[in-house]
Each structure stands twice: as C-alpha cells, then as structure tokens.
C-alpha cells in the first residue's frame, strides 16, 4: 500500500468568531488524487492554505511527507500549489517565471533553467516560453501555474479550482495534466473544485466539505453509496404549470425540489423512489411532458448533503 503523504488531524480555522474550517481530518497517499468538494465558502481554499502553511491553523495539526506542521518552510519545500486566482507578473516570460521560482526552491541557475524548459514542455507551453505572461490565455496561465507547482518535484500538489473560467477543451487539458502528474510522478494531488464531473473523472477519493465541516470522505463509490436510496430526476411540465408543480412536489414526503436549471424543467430528489412524486403531479392534473430518472451519482450525494448551501 502506498505511503501516507498527507495527514490532517482536527484542522480548524476561525476568522474572528466565524468558523471557516471545523475539525477537518483526512489522509492521502502517494499517487492519489483527492477531490476537495464543496459549495462556495465551504472552506476548501482555507483548508489548502493551511496545509500549504500560508495560513496558520487555529487548531489541529497536519503533516506533509512526514514533516510536521511545526516546520512550515520544510513543508513548503515538499509541496506545490496552484492557488485560486493566482496572479502572474505580466512582464515576465513563462521561462523567466519558472526559473525564478526554481531558484527560490534552491535550484542552481542551470538546474532551474533545465527544470523550467522540461516543465514548459510537459504543460505544452514550449513554444510560448519566451513570450510575456501578459500575452497568455487563461488556460495557458493555469498550465504555467501547474508547472510552477511542480518546479520543486513535490510530494504533494494542491490545485485550487484549476479549471475555473476555462472552456471545456481547456478543462479537459488541465484534468489530463492532473491525472498525468499523479500517475507518472506518483505525486499526491489535492484537487479543490465545485465542478463534480471533474472529480468523477480524475479523483480516486473525495472529501465533501460544507460550512467548514467534512460531510463525507472516501472513494467516489463510497460517497455515492452513502446516499444510495436517494434518486434524482428531471420533470418537464408546461412552463405555466411549473410554479404549481413545485408547490405540489414540495408537499410530498421525502421529495426535494433542487433548483431551476431550465424554465420548464424541475430537478428533484427523492429518498423513496420517484413514484410518489410523479403520482402527486399527475393527480394534481398537471401534464407531465417528460420525466427522467438520473440514478445515484456523486452529484446527487453532493447536492443532497449540501442542500442548504447550494440552493
């Protein structure tokens, strides 16, 4: 079994009286891609900032690659981080930027240059190595950020919302890169996101956070099965009847109306099958134009667990 590279115990952070992270504990192993899931404000970024020693925890402790949190500089030497909304010096070239960060991690000038050239190749930026970062697209900057996170050949890589603001092609490129990092290098990757398909695609384990607390942890299959009886579905009714249908569904025990994805489609979840929901709508004389059961997915478990925060 691969060794433990990351271990957090009862990690907490308060900002004044507000609790951002509340007693979070988990472990991650070599080569594992762990998805940190949660709605906005769940505490994902704060957790990553604590684990990357940028923020001091209010309570609890952690270790990275066996280095305890009491030695922050040594931890920083063993991790790579792509911060959320990272900024880049616009006037530097991608190559200059990576060489500089390589030097900050103690590489000699030549080592830093060689590493920078290699990493730029791995993230597909070789051709733009000598261009100013100000001319890079958002996707290119994210790839440069990932290259920067790898400049010290880290044991653990934290990627905070790496696909935010990218088009589907850009998202796919980044996720492929994430998988490669974990598989080829044996690096532990902590991927923070609120985009569920990403997690299902690349993560071996997930940690669902809400309001700073861990709601569920384990493999994707484990977490999905914690809410196995819950089913979700989409019900399409005439637009004029949507409000009434929601009212009717709201009165059915075990059925929850989730969100308005489209004007005429109602997303629902039910704990004991969909029959009761469907009967109630039909009995109320509302025409059902279409009905689709989505089955049990990570997104269902996530939405069910974080209903209060996401609605």
């Amino acid at each position, binding site marked *: 079994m691969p060794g433990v590279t990351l271990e957090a115990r009862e990690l907490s952070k308060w900002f004044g009286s507000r609790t951002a992270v509340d007693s979070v504990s988990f472990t991650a192993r070599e080569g594992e891609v762990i998805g940190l899931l949660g709605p906005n404000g769940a505490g994902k970024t704060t957790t990553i900032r604590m684990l990357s020693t940028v923020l001091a925890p209010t309570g609890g402790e952690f270790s990275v690659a066996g280095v305890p949190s009491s030695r922050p500089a040594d931890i920083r030497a063993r991790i790579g981080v792509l911060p959320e909304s990272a900024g880049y010096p616009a006037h530097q070239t991608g190559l200059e930027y990576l060489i500089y960060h390589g030097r900050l991690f103690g590489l000699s000038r030549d080592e830093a240059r060689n590493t920078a050239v290699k990493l730029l190749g791995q993230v597909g930026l070789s051709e733009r190595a000598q*261009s*100013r970062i100000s*001319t890079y697209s958002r996707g290119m900057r994210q790839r440069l950020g990932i290259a920067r996170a790898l400049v010290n050949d880290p044991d653990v890589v934290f990627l905070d919302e790496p696909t935010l603001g990218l088009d589907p092609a850009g998202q796919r490129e980044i996720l492929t890169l994430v998988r490669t990092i974990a598989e080829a290098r044996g690096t532990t990757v902590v991927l923070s996101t609120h985009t569920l398909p990403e997690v299902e695609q690349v993560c071996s384990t997930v940690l669902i956070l809400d309001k700073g607390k861990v709601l569920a942890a384990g493999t994707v299959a484990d977490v999905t099965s914690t809410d196995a009886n819950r089913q979700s579905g989409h019900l399409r009714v005439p637009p004029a009847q949507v409000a009434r249908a929601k009212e009717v569904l709201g009165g059915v025990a075990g059925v929850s109306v989730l969100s308005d994805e489209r004007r005429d489609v109602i997303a629902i979840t039910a704990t004991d099958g969909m029959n009761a929901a469907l009967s109630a709508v039909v009995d109320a004389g509302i025409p059902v134009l279409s009905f689709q059961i989505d089955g049990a997915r990570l997104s269902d478990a996530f939405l069910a667990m974080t209903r209060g925060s996401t609605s």
Partner: protein
Amino acid sequence: MRLLIAALLLALLPATASATVEVAVAETRIDSTVGAYLNIRTTVTNTGAEPTGKLIAHLNVASLNDVYVDLEDWTAAPTQSVEPLAPGESAQVSWDVQAVNAGVFNVYAVVLPNGSSALAVSPPIHVEVAGRRILSAGGALPIALIVPLLLGLAVYAVRRRLRATA
C-alpha cells in the same frame, strides 16, 4: 546698540567677585567668498579661582578697509548667553555668520562677565571675503538637458524591449 544692551544686562545681574574669563578662537584667519557662511568657533574659559555668573558672549565684525558693516546682515543672533562656569571650566560658543560684503574684516568675540570685571575679548579673526564667483546658468544647462535625455532614452529602450517581446 547690542553692546549697550549687553552692558545693561551686565549691570542688572548679581555681581560675582574676581572671576576671570578668557576667550580663544579656533582659527585666526578665514578666506571666503561673498555670500558664504562662516562658522566662528570660540572657547570661553574661566581662568579665575571663583565661579562665574551667567555670561554674555557677543560677536562683532569690524571692517579694515572702510566697507560698511551692518552686523544684523551678518548674523541674526550676535549675542548668546553662556551658562556659569566653574573655575577652570570651558564652554564652546559658535556663531554662523554670512559674509555679506566683500572686503577685509576682523571678527572678534567679547564676553561680558558679571559684576565689575573687565570685558574679555578674543584675538581677532582675520577674514578676507573675495568678490562673488558667478556661475553662469549656461554652464548648468548641458547637464540639465543631458541627464533627463539619457534617462528618457533608457525609458524608451525598456518600453521598446517590453513591446518587442509582447
């Protein structure tokens, strides 16, 4: 006028018997140009056996070649007070004066002891003030133009480099 005021002050202060004071100057000759500041430094020493009372030190400028001297123009504060000195004790007294006229002058300091003792006078400092050296504005013009021009070129080069690699 100031001497008169000093003498009046002297008369008003309580007498201290047989105090003897000497005034020495740091240099005996100064060559300068008109408009320059001169720092006149003196040392006042109590050479008597008794402590002095509070002393008044006064600077004066005398012209040796009939150039008109208005002491007010040379210094705004020719008179300074000196704290009482114990026997053998010294105090440094200095004046910043501006040589406002060209010519040859003697500058000297007078210390007025308390009571009926005689005035103590420093040796004169021979001051020769040469006529004003005039720097032409034209001399400064090349520097005033060249330095910003060179830096302007540096700014242009940096901007161009940034644009070229953008």
